[in-house]
């Protein structure tokens, strides 16, 4: 797709429709432009605070969640090095993120993941990730995909997060439940919030559940971390 056509579609999506729905539709647009089977958009401001703004399907969501839980994977790498990153999830474990390789294969089966840093102004603000089922490739080449990611970044930066109050229906607040649970666990065990988050991640990993599910249990007071 031509760059101008990508821009005009991005503008069409980011200026129309209800605000809460926009990021989700941006995710769908990216999946279509890339010709991927699924896509996701994450924003990052610190390691404790990665937020998946949009995932087009449960598999894309699961791939992001695994990286939240494990603290490793192609999306995190693309953010850290500010370069596109690609990996195949199959029987050959990728030595860059062995745990993610194994867990992703078990969770979603063989596929190819490609991640593009969203860096409209230099330093990345997040990552556009996509996957295709095994054997297929993306429709677009790397330079167009990277252009899409950066243009998406401009649209996201113009879509500022809401106020301080957690709004559970707002995609920008998708991690709110994790923040609440982190505070609760920090108080239960009298540990730092960093340690509390690490414990939540470990629990999610050990029980093979999404981080937000474990957080839900804590907030619903069905899971306590007191000794």
């Amino acid at each position: 797709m031509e760059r101008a056509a990508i821009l005009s579609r991005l503008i069409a999506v980011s200026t129309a429709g209800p605000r809460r729905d926009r990021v989700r539709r941006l995710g769908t647009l990216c999946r279509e432009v890339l010709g991927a089977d699924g896509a996701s958009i994450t924003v990052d401001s610190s390691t404790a605070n990665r937020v998946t703004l949009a995932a087009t399907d449960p598999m894309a969501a699961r791939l992001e969640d695994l990286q939240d839980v494990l603290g490793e994977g192609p999306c995190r790498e693309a953010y850290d090095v500010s370069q596109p990153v690609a990996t195949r999830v199959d029987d050959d474990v990728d030595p860059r993120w062995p745990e993610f390789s194994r867990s992703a294969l078990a969770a979603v089966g063989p596929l190819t993941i490609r991640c593009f840093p969203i860096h409209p102004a230099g330093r990345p603000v997040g990552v556009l990730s996509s996957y295709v089922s095994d054997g297929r490739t993306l429709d677009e080449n790397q330079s167009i995909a990277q252009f899409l990611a950066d243009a998406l970044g401009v649209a996201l930066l113009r879509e500022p997060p809401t106020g301080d109050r957690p709004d559970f229906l707002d995609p920008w607040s998708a991690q709110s439940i994790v923040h609440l649970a982190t505070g609760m666990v920090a108080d239960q065990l009298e540990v730092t919030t960093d340690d509390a988050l690490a414990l939540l991640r470990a629990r999610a990993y050990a029980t093979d559940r999404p981080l937000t599910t474990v957080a839900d249990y804590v907030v619903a007071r069905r899971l306590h971390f007191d000794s």
Partner: protein
Amino acid sequence: MPETLPAFAFADFAIRLENLSSTAQVVEALQDAAPLLLGCGHVSLLLYRDRQLQVAGGTDESLTAATGAQLELGEGPALLVAQGAAEVACPDLRTEHQWPRWAPYAAGLGWRSWLCLRLARRERRCLGVLTVGSRGIEQFQGELAGRAHVLAAHLAVAIDTTQMQENMMRAQDAQMRVGQAVGVLMERYQLDADQAFSVLRRYSQDRQMKLRDVAAELLTTRRLPDVE
């Protein structure tokens, strides 16, 4: 007057600005590049922070002081620019009568020619003011003014983008802190999320602190507001 327009220097500057991620870095890049780009004079920068114009930096202490004095005295060319003028030029501050307190002060520091340019981008929102000053009279006409405008245009783009990025990071960080602090209150007092949020908000109102600052303090000290 400097020789040819340093087109390559501008290109280098634009490329360098592309890769910066904080306003502080943009100011630093301006300080490094301005002498080469303009060929003479010095620059200073005023930027909005918390909706107030503040001195962000400059290539010369005395020029920066003269720039900042406008904010204290409440008069000067930068304030006209902040109110909507695209540029204000003074060929000689010693004969300038528009600002009876500020102009003599700046002239007393040795500044004669003065040029203020508005840094603006989307919807013409003013991001700040770029000032070019010289100790000679009538310096900023013709080519040099043109260079200053190019410099201002590059700066505006860089500052706009980095500020949006900084705002997004700050908002994300605030949301995390507030969420975690609400979690601490929920656990400590066995409240639901809405009740705990109300407690935090009341505490922030009583102490006249921003919600995000109250949350950060609570997370560090773990001392909690009293709950009736």
